[in-house]
């Protein structure tokens, strides 16, 4: 399948500070890709480069077979949604959404049709004549979405669009966004620092750190097979061991040497003996209820904290002095690429 969006060797520096280091990736048509990373990793800058709002010093950008890195923003046929909506304040919802269409001098009938179809899609039809300043945050973002989709761009770029919203609205919009994306088969690149969000809605997640893509995979692969310590620790919860610690409990990894770190996900730690598992002596410190998860906090004799998550079946786990880990559940990660801030 031909790639829809391609970047090759994209680099951007601000003075002598390198923000993006030699970024290359491909996105397929209809894919929902998320750029994930902590603040300052360059994900927003990367998105803006694709949009043409920032200029990289080097690199090639291709969209739908055409090279676009030298084109001004308005000729790139992309849609963009900002974190703080950026709706035009003097206009109504209708006027905002119709803005790009009016600029293209489309016929009034066509404009009407398209705008109302989109308002329907984002469920804001009855607000068509309301001035945008009167809307809530969630509503404003939906207008921004409709506005960006109105011109039927080739690709939609979203820069932390949900970060400014309340938790509940956020969850609703995550669902709606994914739904709209699937319905329109729109290629989307989404930027966020919230790994839960990324995992929830994406087809693929590109994790960025300090200007580089450190892993690009599906959410499942990202969680179960992190390729470096940064990803292992950034995504999900875990308990980590270094080689010396682990050798105290099991000899399975004794031949591996110091070059690796070892991670275990909390839901895979057993409280009853299983075949092949090694055990760690612990003491229970506390239990918290997170809703449908119960989190048990244990401490080893070395003072290391181990979290064990269980689905809340409304009962406590029976008392235990040991935790059991199957060596097959241990994620082994090469330390070679320890990415710094």
């Amino acid at each position: 399948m031909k790639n829809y969006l391609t970047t090759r060797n994209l680099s951007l520096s601000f003075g002598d500070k390198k923000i993006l280091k030699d970024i290359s990736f491909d996105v397929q048509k209809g894919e929902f890709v998320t750029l994930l990373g902590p603040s300052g990793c360059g994900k927003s800058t990367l998105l803006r480069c694709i949009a043409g709002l920032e200029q990289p010093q080097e690199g090639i950008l291709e969209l739908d077979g055409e090279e676009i890195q030298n084109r001004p923003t308005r000729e790139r046929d992309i849609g963009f949604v900002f974190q703080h909506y950026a709706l035009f304040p003097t206009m109504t919802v209708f006027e905002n959404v119709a803005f790009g269409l009016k600029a293209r001098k489309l016929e009034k009938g066509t404009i009407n049709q398209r705008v109302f179809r989109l308002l329907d899609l984002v469920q804001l039809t009855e607000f068509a004549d309301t001035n945008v300043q009167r809307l809530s945050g969630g509503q404003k973002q939906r207008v921004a979405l409709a506005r960006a989709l109105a011109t039927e761009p080739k690709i939609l770029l979203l820069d932390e669009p949900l970060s400014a919203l309340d938790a509940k609205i956020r969850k609703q919009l995550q669902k709606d966004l994914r739904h709209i994306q699937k319905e329109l088969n729109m290629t989307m690149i989404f930027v966020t620092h919230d790994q839960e969000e990324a995992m929830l809605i994406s087809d693929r997640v590109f994790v960025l750190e300090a200007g580089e893509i450190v892993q690009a995979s599906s959410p499942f692969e990202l969680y179960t097979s992190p390729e470096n310590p940064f990803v292992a620790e950034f995504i999900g919860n875990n308990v980590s061991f270094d080689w010396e610690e682990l050798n105290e409990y099991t000899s399975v990894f004794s031949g591996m040497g110091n070059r690796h770190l070892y991670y275990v996900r909390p839901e895979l730690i057993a409280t009853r003996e299983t075949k092949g598992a090694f055990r760690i002596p612990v003491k229970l410190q506390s239990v918290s209820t997170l809703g449908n998860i119960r989190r048990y906090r244990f401490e080893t004799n070395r003072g290391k904290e181990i979290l064990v998550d269980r689905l809340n079946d409304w009962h406590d786990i029976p008392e235990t002095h040991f935790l059991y880990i199957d060596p097959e559940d241990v994620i082994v990660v090469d330390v070679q690429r320890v990415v710094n801030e």
Partner: protein
Amino acid sequence: MKKYAGLVPLISLLAAFLIVPLIFMLLSSFQSDQTGTWTMTNYTEFFSNSYYYQAFFNSLLITMVSCILGLTGAMVLCICLLQLSEKTQEKITFVSNLAANFAGIPLAFSFIILLGNAGVMKLIMPSLQAFDLYSWWGLGLTYVYFQIPLGVLFLYPSMRELKKEWAEVSATLGTTSFYYWRKVALPFLRPSLITTFIILFANGMGTYETAYALTGSNVNLLTVRIASLVSGDVFAKPNMGSALAVLFGLMMITLMSIVGRKEKK
């Protein structure tokens, strides 16, 4: 009751030097300069005597020109200043303050040095010889000098509100910069532009010192005309001056209330 006592000094001063004189002025505007009888002739003379209504139109013309140029200049300057760092806000008030106090005699004189009949710039660039500082344009140019800083002072805060993202969104939607300005930025700035214009207008109409220093009584301006009617030694016609002042005041008050209504929006 005691708390009203604290207001006495202020109110007595206001009464003595503002309210009572204004009433006197209003009353005397209905009195004839020659005979002292009650009459409307002062007002009718304004409309019939070209000497007077010409003063009004002259002031109006110069003010309008300096307002339009001043506002445009202020907008351009604001756009440029916004590209610079955050520290500019305070510096703007500082410079504006300076320019405001420099206005008047020092300003007029420095323009005479530069562009007067024997002006330095005229000697350096002979092509400027044709420029007459003591005419419309000359006066207007001098006005613009202090109108622009005032315009910047009032316009800058609103222009700062113009979000960079609006321009970016506009670009992603496929529009040119010009289209963005026409459809988004200017409509957004409209209230502020109107307010600033009116402030500049009041400022321009009310200017006395600069005009007087530059052209004396030669250019017929409303402020200068009123002043000479009221305090001129030989041909003083104070009641006529009062009438003109009343008309002037009414006009300005009407304008200000328009501003007030626009602001409430």
